[in-house]
Protein backbone atom coordinates (compact mmCIF):
# COMPACT_ATOMS: atom_id res chain seq x y z
CA UNK A 1 0.00 0.00 0.00
CA UNK A 2 1.51 3.37 -0.93
CA UNK A 3 1.67 6.44 1.29
CA UNK A 4 -1.68 8.10 1.78
CA UNK A 5 -3.11 11.46 2.61
CA UNK A 6 -4.21 11.59 6.25
CA UNK A 7 -6.40 14.30 7.67
CA UNK A 8 -6.51 15.22 11.37
CA UNK A 9 -8.01 18.06 13.34
CA UNK A 10 -4.94 19.32 15.20
CA UNK A 11 -5.47 21.97 17.86
CA UNK A 12 -8.78 22.86 16.25
CA UNK A 13 -7.49 23.14 12.68
CA UNK A 14 -7.90 20.60 9.91
CA UNK A 15 -4.46 19.49 8.71
CA UNK A 16 -3.63 17.14 5.86
CA UNK A 17 -0.33 15.46 5.18
CA UNK A 18 1.17 12.47 3.43
CA UNK A 19 1.88 9.48 5.69
CA UNK A 20 3.94 6.41 4.87
CA UNK A 21 2.42 3.09 6.04
CA UNK A 22 2.78 2.57 9.78
CA UNK A 23 4.12 6.04 10.53
CA UNK A 24 3.23 7.10 14.06
CA UNK A 25 1.05 9.99 15.14
CA UNK A 26 4.16 11.30 16.91
CA UNK A 27 6.29 11.31 13.76
CA UNK A 28 3.43 12.90 11.82
CA UNK A 29 3.08 15.71 14.34
CA UNK A 30 6.80 16.36 14.54
CA UNK A 31 7.96 15.75 10.99
CA UNK A 32 4.94 16.44 8.80
CA UNK A 33 3.26 19.20 10.79
CA UNK A 34 6.26 20.77 12.53
CA UNK A 35 4.73 20.41 16.00
CA UNK A 36 7.72 19.40 18.07
CA UNK A 37 6.42 19.80 21.63
CA UNK A 38 5.65 16.09 21.93
CA UNK A 39 9.01 14.35 22.23
CA UNK A 40 10.26 10.98 21.08
CA UNK A 41 11.58 9.35 24.24
CA UNK A 42 11.48 5.57 24.37
CA UNK A 43 9.19 4.91 21.36
CA UNK A 44 7.90 1.98 23.41
CA UNK A 45 5.06 3.61 25.33
CA UNK A 46 6.98 3.52 28.59
CA UNK A 47 8.03 7.14 29.15
CA UNK A 48 4.99 9.25 28.24
CA UNK A 49 6.88 12.22 26.83
CA UNK A 50 4.99 11.96 23.51
CA UNK A 51 1.57 12.12 25.22
CA UNK A 52 -1.07 14.10 23.30
CA UNK A 53 -4.85 14.18 23.61
CA UNK A 54 -6.87 12.20 21.06
CA UNK A 55 -10.51 13.25 21.27
CA UNK A 56 -9.66 14.69 24.68
CA UNK A 57 -7.99 11.61 26.14
CA UNK A 58 -4.26 11.21 26.70
CA UNK A 59 -2.55 8.70 24.43
CA UNK A 60 1.12 8.05 23.80
CA UNK A 61 1.51 9.22 20.21
CA UNK A 62 4.47 6.91 19.59
CA UNK A 63 2.16 3.88 19.73
CA UNK A 64 -0.54 5.25 17.44
CA UNK A 65 -0.29 4.33 13.76
CA UNK A 66 -1.56 7.57 12.29
CA UNK A 67 -3.91 5.89 9.78
CA UNK A 68 -5.90 4.51 12.71
CA UNK A 69 -6.83 7.98 14.02
CA UNK A 70 -7.58 9.65 10.67
CA UNK A 71 -10.23 12.34 11.01
CA UNK A 72 -9.97 12.55 14.78
CA UNK A 73 -9.17 15.50 16.98
CA UNK A 74 -5.65 15.80 18.39
CA UNK A 75 -4.52 18.35 20.95
CA UNK A 76 -0.85 19.03 21.56
CA UNK A 77 1.00 21.38 23.87
CA UNK A 78 1.08 23.92 21.02
CA UNK A 79 -2.69 24.14 21.33
CA UNK A 80 -2.63 24.84 25.07
CA UNK A 81 -1.13 28.32 25.12
CA UNK A 82 -3.95 30.02 23.24
CA UNK A 83 -2.68 33.18 21.55
CA UNK A 84 0.76 32.74 23.11
CA UNK A 85 -0.60 33.14 26.63
CA UNK A 86 0.39 30.36 29.06
CA UNK A 87 -2.58 28.65 30.68
CA UNK A 88 -3.00 27.79 34.38
CA UNK A 89 -1.16 24.48 34.12
CA UNK A 90 1.80 25.97 32.28
CA UNK A 91 2.01 28.91 34.67
CA UNK A 92 1.85 26.57 37.66
CA UNK A 93 4.68 24.47 36.19
CA UNK A 94 6.80 27.63 35.94
CA UNK A 95 5.90 28.91 39.38
CA UNK A 96 6.33 25.56 41.15
CA UNK A 97 9.66 24.68 39.45
CA UNK A 98 8.00 21.62 37.92
CA UNK A 99 10.20 21.66 34.85
CA UNK A 100 13.95 21.23 34.76
CA UNK A 101 15.37 19.78 31.53
CA UNK A 102 11.91 20.04 29.99
CA UNK A 103 11.90 16.74 28.14
CA UNK A 104 8.94 15.28 30.05
CA UNK A 105 7.09 18.59 30.40
CA UNK A 106 4.93 18.47 27.26
CA UNK A 107 3.63 15.02 28.17
CA UNK A 108 3.12 15.92 31.82
CA UNK A 109 1.13 19.04 30.90
CA UNK A 110 -1.10 17.20 28.43
CA UNK A 111 -1.91 14.56 31.04
CA UNK A 112 -2.66 17.33 33.52
CA UNK A 113 -4.92 19.14 31.03
CA UNK A 114 -6.94 15.97 30.47
CA UNK A 115 -7.15 15.29 34.20
CA UNK A 116 -8.36 18.80 35.03
CA UNK A 117 -10.84 18.79 32.13
CA UNK A 118 -12.39 15.67 33.62
CA UNK A 119 -11.98 16.46 37.30
CA UNK A 120 -11.47 20.11 38.34
CA UNK A 121 -10.68 19.10 41.92
CA UNK A 122 -8.41 16.04 41.84
CA UNK A 123 -6.85 14.60 44.98
CA UNK A 124 -3.10 14.18 45.23
CA UNK A 125 -3.58 10.45 44.67
CA UNK A 126 -5.54 11.20 41.48
CA UNK A 127 -2.66 13.35 40.21
CA UNK A 128 -0.07 10.70 41.04
CA UNK A 129 -2.11 8.07 39.22
CA UNK A 130 -2.70 10.33 36.20
CA UNK A 131 1.05 10.93 35.69
CA UNK A 132 2.02 7.34 36.51
CA UNK A 133 2.80 6.72 32.83
CA UNK A 134 5.09 9.75 32.55
CA UNK A 135 8.73 9.47 33.52
CA UNK A 136 10.65 12.48 34.88
CA UNK A 137 14.35 12.05 35.62
CA UNK A 138 14.94 15.55 37.04
CA UNK A 139 12.36 16.67 39.55
CA UNK A 140 11.59 13.61 41.60
CA UNK A 141 7.94 14.25 40.65
CA UNK A 142 7.07 16.18 43.79
CA UNK A 143 7.11 19.67 42.16
CA UNK A 144 5.04 18.31 39.26
CA UNK A 145 2.35 16.96 41.58
CA UNK A 146 2.31 20.25 43.48
CA UNK A 147 2.09 22.23 40.21
CA UNK A 148 -0.88 20.24 38.92
CA UNK A 149 -2.74 20.63 42.23
CA UNK A 150 -1.90 24.34 42.16
CA UNK A 151 -3.15 24.62 38.57
CA UNK A 152 -6.40 22.97 39.62
CA UNK A 153 -6.78 25.49 42.43
CA UNK A 154 -6.11 28.40 40.11
CA UNK A 155 -8.48 27.07 37.49
CA UNK A 156 -11.25 26.74 40.05
CA UNK A 157 -10.64 30.36 40.92
CA UNK A 158 -10.11 29.49 44.59
CA UNK A 159 -6.76 31.27 44.67
CA UNK A 160 -5.96 34.35 42.67
CA UNK A 161 -2.41 34.90 41.55
Amino acid at each position, binding site marked *: *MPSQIVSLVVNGERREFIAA*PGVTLLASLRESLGLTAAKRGCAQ*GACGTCTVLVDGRP*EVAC*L*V*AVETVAGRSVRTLEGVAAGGELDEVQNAFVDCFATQCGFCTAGMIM*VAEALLDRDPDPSEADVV*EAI*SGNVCRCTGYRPIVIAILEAARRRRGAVSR
Partner: protein
Amino acid sequence: MVIQAVHVPESAEAAVTYSARGAWIMGGGTVVMPLVNSGAAPATELVSLRRAGLGGVEVRDGVARIGAAATLAAVGEHPGLSFLRPALRTIASPTLRNQATVGGNLFVAQPYGDLAVCLLALDATCEIAGPDGRRDAPVADVLASGVGSGEVVVAVRAALPGPGVWHYHKAMRRRLNSAAIVTVAAVTRTADGVVTFSRIALGGVAPRPVRAVSAERLLRGRPLTHDVLTEAGEAAHGDIDPFDDAYASAWYRARVLPVHLRRALLP
Protein backbone atom coordinates in the same frame (compact mmCIF):
# COMPACT_ATOMS: atom_id res chain seq x y z
CA MET B 1 10.22 -5.88 9.01
CA VAL B 2 9.25 -2.59 7.42
CA ILE B 3 5.53 -1.95 7.48
CA GLN B 4 4.03 -1.77 4.00
CA ALA B 5 0.37 -1.33 4.92
CA VAL B 6 -1.82 -0.56 7.91
CA HIS B 7 -5.38 -1.60 7.17
CA VAL B 8 -8.15 0.05 9.18
CA PRO B 9 -11.25 -1.94 8.19
CA GLU B 10 -14.74 -0.91 9.23
CA SER B 11 -16.08 -4.38 9.99
CA ALA B 12 -14.95 -7.56 11.72
CA GLU B 13 -15.41 -9.49 8.45
CA ALA B 14 -13.03 -7.17 6.62
CA ALA B 15 -10.54 -7.55 9.49
CA VAL B 16 -10.75 -11.32 9.07
CA THR B 17 -10.01 -10.96 5.34
CA TYR B 18 -6.80 -9.02 6.05
CA SER B 19 -5.87 -11.35 8.89
CA ALA B 20 -6.32 -14.39 6.64
CA ARG B 21 -3.93 -12.73 4.16
CA GLY B 22 -1.27 -12.56 6.84
CA ALA B 23 -1.76 -9.10 8.31
CA TRP B 24 -0.87 -8.89 12.02
CA ILE B 25 -3.84 -7.92 14.19
CA MET B 26 -3.42 -4.75 16.22
CA GLY B 27 -5.84 -3.73 18.98
CA GLY B 28 -4.59 -0.58 20.70
CA GLY B 29 -1.04 -0.86 19.43
CA THR B 30 0.58 -0.99 22.86
CA VAL B 31 2.32 -4.27 22.04
CA VAL B 32 2.57 -4.20 18.24
CA MET B 33 3.77 -0.61 17.82
CA PRO B 34 6.84 -0.95 20.09
CA LEU B 35 7.91 -3.76 17.75
CA VAL B 36 7.20 -1.58 14.70
CA ASN B 37 9.19 1.28 16.21
CA SER B 38 12.19 -0.92 16.89
CA GLY B 39 12.12 -2.46 13.42
CA ALA B 40 11.03 -5.83 14.80
CA ALA B 41 7.48 -5.95 13.41
CA PRO B 42 6.38 -9.56 12.96
CA ALA B 43 4.68 -8.88 9.60
CA THR B 44 4.74 -6.31 6.81
CA GLU B 45 1.03 -5.59 7.08
CA LEU B 46 -1.04 -4.65 10.13
CA VAL B 47 -4.79 -4.68 10.54
CA SER B 48 -6.10 -2.31 13.19
CA LEU B 49 -9.38 -3.04 14.96
CA ARG B 50 -9.87 0.61 15.99
CA ARG B 51 -12.67 1.26 13.49
CA ALA B 52 -14.07 -2.25 13.09
CA GLY B 53 -17.10 -1.60 15.29
CA LEU B 54 -15.73 -3.79 18.08
CA GLY B 55 -15.44 -1.15 20.79
CA GLY B 56 -18.77 -1.66 22.56
CA VAL B 57 -19.25 -2.60 26.21
CA GLU B 58 -22.69 -3.92 27.23
CA VAL B 59 -24.02 -5.41 30.43
CA ARG B 60 -27.41 -7.05 30.25
CA ASP B 61 -29.15 -9.68 32.39
CA GLY B 62 -26.02 -10.31 34.44
CA VAL B 63 -23.80 -10.91 31.43
CA ALA B 64 -21.12 -8.57 30.12
CA ARG B 65 -20.29 -8.50 26.43
CA ILE B 66 -17.13 -6.54 25.74
CA GLY B 67 -15.94 -5.81 22.22
CA ALA B 68 -12.38 -6.89 21.50
CA ALA B 69 -11.41 -3.32 20.63
CA ALA B 70 -12.94 -1.82 23.79
CA THR B 71 -10.19 -0.04 25.68
CA LEU B 72 -9.36 -0.94 29.26
CA ALA B 73 -10.53 2.60 30.12
CA ALA B 74 -13.93 1.94 28.54
CA VAL B 75 -14.33 -1.26 30.55
CA GLY B 76 -13.41 0.51 33.78
CA GLU B 77 -15.84 3.34 33.12
CA HIS B 78 -18.84 1.09 32.53
CA PRO B 79 -21.07 1.30 35.60
CA GLY B 80 -21.98 -2.38 35.31
CA LEU B 81 -18.34 -3.48 35.49
CA SER B 82 -17.23 -1.58 38.56
CA PHE B 83 -16.03 -4.83 40.17
CA LEU B 84 -13.20 -4.85 37.60
CA ARG B 85 -12.10 -1.28 38.32
CA PRO B 86 -9.55 -2.14 41.05
CA ALA B 87 -7.99 -4.73 38.74
CA LEU B 88 -7.87 -2.36 35.78
CA ARG B 89 -6.19 0.29 37.90
CA THR B 90 -3.29 -2.09 38.47
CA ILE B 91 -2.71 -2.37 34.71
CA ALA B 92 -0.25 0.07 33.11
CA SER B 93 -1.02 3.81 33.35
CA PRO B 94 -4.31 5.63 32.74
CA THR B 95 -2.85 6.88 29.45
CA LEU B 96 -2.06 3.39 28.20
CA ARG B 97 -5.47 2.21 29.38
CA ASN B 98 -6.94 4.68 26.87
CA GLN B 99 -5.20 2.67 24.16
CA ALA B 100 -4.80 -0.96 25.28
CA THR B 101 -7.74 -3.19 24.37
CA VAL B 102 -9.50 -6.17 25.91
CA GLY B 103 -8.78 -8.36 22.89
CA GLY B 104 -5.13 -7.38 22.84
CA ASN B 105 -4.78 -8.20 26.53
CA LEU B 106 -5.50 -11.87 25.71
CA PHE B 107 -2.43 -12.06 23.51
CA VAL B 108 0.25 -10.21 25.48
CA ALA B 109 3.13 -12.05 27.04
CA GLN B 110 3.23 -12.58 30.79
CA PRO B 111 3.81 -10.90 33.21
CA TYR B 112 1.40 -8.55 31.42
CA GLY B 113 -2.23 -9.42 30.72
CA ASP B 114 -3.85 -9.06 34.14
CA LEU B 115 -7.28 -8.56 32.56
CA ALA B 116 -6.85 -11.92 30.85
CA VAL B 117 -6.23 -13.38 34.33
CA CYS B 118 -9.54 -11.85 35.44
CA LEU B 119 -11.34 -13.22 32.38
CA LEU B 120 -9.93 -16.67 33.11
CA ALA B 121 -11.24 -16.50 36.67
CA LEU B 122 -14.62 -15.43 35.27
CA ASP B 123 -14.56 -18.37 32.84
CA ALA B 124 -15.26 -15.93 29.99
CA THR B 125 -16.16 -16.96 26.47
CA CYS B 126 -14.43 -15.52 23.41
CA GLU B 127 -16.47 -14.78 20.29
CA ILE B 128 -14.20 -15.48 17.34
CA ALA B 129 -14.73 -14.50 13.70
CA GLY B 130 -12.85 -16.42 11.05
CA PRO B 131 -12.79 -17.29 7.38
CA ASP B 132 -15.32 -20.07 8.10
CA GLY B 133 -17.71 -17.95 10.14
CA ARG B 134 -18.15 -17.35 13.83
CA ARG B 135 -17.51 -19.61 16.79
CA ASP B 136 -17.29 -19.37 20.56
CA ALA B 137 -14.37 -20.68 22.62
CA PRO B 138 -13.57 -20.64 26.34
CA VAL B 139 -11.04 -17.94 27.16
CA ALA B 140 -8.91 -20.70 28.71
CA ASP B 141 -8.51 -22.29 25.26
CA VAL B 142 -7.62 -18.99 23.61
CA LEU B 143 -5.05 -18.25 26.31
CA ALA B 144 -3.60 -21.75 26.00
CA SER B 145 -3.44 -22.09 22.23
CA GLY B 146 -4.45 -18.84 20.56
CA VAL B 147 -6.81 -18.71 17.61
CA GLY B 148 -6.62 -20.25 14.17
CA SER B 149 -5.10 -18.70 11.09
CA GLY B 150 -7.16 -15.74 9.93
CA GLU B 151 -9.29 -15.76 13.06
CA VAL B 152 -9.97 -12.63 15.08
CA VAL B 153 -11.38 -12.46 18.62
CA VAL B 154 -14.25 -9.99 18.23
CA ALA B 155 -15.76 -9.97 21.73
CA VAL B 156 -15.55 -11.50 25.19
CA ARG B 157 -18.60 -12.53 27.22
CA ALA B 158 -18.69 -13.24 30.92
CA ALA B 159 -21.32 -13.69 33.58
CA LEU B 160 -20.93 -11.09 36.29
CA PRO B 161 -19.92 -12.47 39.68
CA GLY B 162 -22.46 -11.88 42.41
CA PRO B 163 -21.75 -9.59 45.31
CA GLY B 164 -18.91 -10.67 47.58
CA VAL B 165 -17.55 -13.49 45.46
CA TRP B 166 -15.00 -11.60 43.34
CA HIS B 167 -11.42 -11.33 44.56
CA TYR B 168 -8.40 -9.69 42.96
CA HIS B 169 -4.92 -8.98 44.22
CA LYS B 170 -1.73 -8.12 42.36
CA ALA B 171 1.74 -7.99 43.82
CA MET B 172 3.96 -5.54 41.98
CA ARG B 173 7.17 -3.57 42.43
CA ARG B 174 5.38 -0.24 42.60
CA ARG B 175 1.87 0.78 43.59
CA LEU B 176 1.03 1.91 40.04
CA ASN B 177 2.03 1.03 36.48
CA SER B 178 4.08 -2.10 37.10
CA ALA B 179 3.82 -5.60 35.72
CA ALA B 180 2.84 -8.61 37.81
CA ILE B 181 5.02 -10.43 40.25
CA VAL B 182 1.96 -12.48 41.16
CA THR B 183 -1.63 -11.71 40.14
CA VAL B 184 -4.56 -13.57 41.70
CA ALA B 185 -8.15 -13.30 40.45
CA ALA B 186 -10.86 -15.53 41.84
CA VAL B 187 -14.57 -16.23 42.02
CA THR B 188 -15.23 -17.98 45.31
CA ARG B 189 -18.57 -18.83 46.86
CA THR B 190 -19.10 -19.99 50.40
CA ALA B 191 -22.05 -21.40 52.30
CA ASP B 192 -22.25 -22.24 55.98
CA GLY B 193 -18.69 -21.00 56.37
CA VAL B 194 -17.10 -23.35 53.85
CA VAL B 195 -16.14 -22.99 50.21
CA THR B 196 -18.72 -24.42 47.81
CA PHE B 197 -17.12 -23.18 44.62
CA SER B 198 -13.87 -21.51 43.60
CA ARG B 199 -12.24 -20.63 40.33
CA ILE B 200 -8.80 -19.13 40.84
CA ALA B 201 -6.63 -17.73 38.06
CA LEU B 202 -2.99 -16.72 38.43
CA GLY B 203 -0.81 -14.31 36.48
CA GLY B 204 2.94 -13.73 36.58
CA VAL B 205 3.73 -17.32 37.51
CA ALA B 206 3.64 -19.14 34.17
CA PRO B 207 4.12 -18.35 30.48
CA ARG B 208 0.38 -17.64 30.35
CA PRO B 209 -2.44 -17.10 32.83
CA VAL B 210 -3.22 -20.40 34.56
CA ARG B 211 -5.93 -21.85 36.78
CA ALA B 212 -4.84 -22.86 40.26
CA VAL B 213 -6.79 -26.10 40.08
CA SER B 214 -4.88 -27.73 42.94
CA ALA B 215 -5.75 -24.83 45.22
CA GLU B 216 -9.37 -24.90 44.07
CA ARG B 217 -9.61 -28.61 44.89
CA LEU B 218 -8.07 -28.13 48.31
CA LEU B 219 -10.43 -25.31 49.23
CA ARG B 220 -13.64 -27.18 48.47
CA GLY B 221 -15.63 -27.82 51.64
CA ARG B 222 -13.18 -25.96 53.84
CA PRO B 223 -13.35 -22.55 55.53
CA LEU B 224 -11.44 -19.54 54.16
CA THR B 225 -9.02 -19.25 57.05
CA HIS B 226 -5.40 -18.13 57.13
CA ASP B 227 -4.13 -21.70 57.52
CA VAL B 228 -6.35 -23.25 54.87
CA LEU B 229 -5.44 -20.55 52.37
CA THR B 230 -1.73 -20.94 53.09
CA GLU B 231 -2.12 -24.65 52.44
CA ALA B 232 -4.00 -23.89 49.21
CA GLY B 233 -1.24 -21.50 48.17
CA GLU B 234 1.35 -24.21 48.74
CA ALA B 235 -0.78 -26.62 46.70
CA ALA B 236 -0.87 -24.07 43.86
CA HIS B 237 2.85 -24.65 43.35
CA GLY B 238 1.70 -27.66 41.36
CA ASP B 239 -0.12 -25.40 38.91
CA ILE B 240 2.62 -22.91 38.06
CA ASP B 241 5.71 -22.71 35.88
CA PRO B 242 7.31 -19.42 36.93
CA PHE B 243 9.99 -17.49 35.07
CA ASP B 244 12.77 -15.00 35.80
CA ASP B 245 12.46 -11.48 34.50
CA ALA B 246 13.40 -7.93 35.45
CA TYR B 247 10.51 -7.78 37.94
CA ALA B 248 11.24 -10.91 39.97
CA SER B 249 12.92 -14.29 39.85
CA ALA B 250 11.02 -17.51 39.33
CA TRP B 251 12.10 -18.54 42.83
CA TYR B 252 10.65 -15.37 44.34
CA ARG B 253 7.37 -15.68 42.47
CA ALA B 254 6.88 -19.22 43.71
CA ARG B 255 7.95 -18.27 47.23
CA VAL B 256 5.43 -15.44 47.60
CA LEU B 257 2.53 -17.07 45.74
CA PRO B 258 0.88 -18.53 48.90
CA VAL B 259 1.04 -15.13 50.61
CA HIS B 260 -0.68 -13.35 47.74
CA LEU B 261 -3.24 -16.07 47.18
CA ARG B 262 -4.15 -15.73 50.83
CA ARG B 263 -4.27 -11.93 50.63
CA ALA B 264 -6.53 -12.11 47.55
CA LEU B 265 -9.12 -14.25 49.31
CA LEU B 266 -8.72 -13.00 52.88
CA PRO B 267 -8.05 -9.26 52.71
